[in-house]
């Protein structure tokens, strides 16, 4: 198939990437429900120090760094409030 198609990256790399994503989630065993609870609890703690945090804006994801280390990536945007 695709005799002259040099740009065909092949389905193997697709398989590899899908597998990496699936395994990332399989291995940490974090359900979406647990992530939601984690967000709320994390927010409760951080609010003691930075009151302007909005739990709805927190983003937690299981990701992989460039050198294949699995990590829990958290993005917590600071709200508008200044100095509480």
């Amino acid at each position, binding site marked *: 198939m695709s005799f*002259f198609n040099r740009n065909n990256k092949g*389905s*193997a790399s697709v398989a*590899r990437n899908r597998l990496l994503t*699936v*395994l990332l989630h*399989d*291995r940490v065993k974090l359900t979406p429900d647990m992530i939601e609870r984690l967000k709320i609890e994390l927010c409760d703690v951080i609010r003691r120090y930075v009151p302007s945090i909005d739990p709805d804006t927190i983003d937690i994801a299981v990701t992989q760094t460039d050198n294949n280390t699995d990590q829990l990536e958290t993005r917590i945007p600071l709200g508008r409030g200044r100095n509480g």
Partner: protein
Amino acid sequence: MAKVITITSGKGGVGKTTSTANLGTALAGLGNKVVVVDADIGLRNLDVVMGLENRIVYDLVDVIEGNCRLRQALIKDKHEAELYLLPAAQTRDKDAVTQEEMVELVDQLREEFDFVLIDSPAGIESGFKNAIAGADEIIIVTTPEVSAVRDADRIIGLCEAYEKGQPRLILNRLRPKMVRSGEMMSVEDVLQILAIDLIGIIPEDEDVITATNKGEVLVLDKSSKTGKYYTDIARRINGEEVAIDPIEDTPSLIERISNMLRGGR
């Protein structure tokens, strides 16, 4: 000292039973006294793969329940004098056996044999747990597909949880041509993802189907490359240092022309 090795995979249909039959035959051919145990209770298969289905009188559950002595249930192989099969029960449920009973049975087999190879059922439930309960070592069979590798990863995690040490991997049904054209995950891809040691690579081979149709195993066919790859794995299990070579496969003429046109490799 006997060694007990369980061959498992998580996913079904990736080649556990074929691998068990070939490795058992090859290990016996290397001068070991070997028993292959079918732990897939209710879905007996190892007997037909080895062509021994007509000789079964008693099975594993009969031994555990004391309906017969262990020796009575062991079936002698057609070809290898020092190879025996302990068949699974076909009409029973997988819950007919407990982990403790399996460990006890395996310990009995240790006294008689150099190698005890246990063919595990697919899945991660009681049948799988029974199959690994008495094992010293685990060999995982997978194919280079997303679902099979995912299940293998789960099994590796369970082996760690049950303190079975790190399993070794047989990568089965590799198609070198598809790997070269980027349409199948490579040996390196799978090893990097699973992060365990490789014990051998088996290519996709139609001869496995024809051999299985006849109830024969490929390691006995001296002209079979796949048989040789299995024998090499058996030698590694046997403690020999045998290098794992990439699967030989000459690129076809069309493939070579196509590679040239691509500014090829």
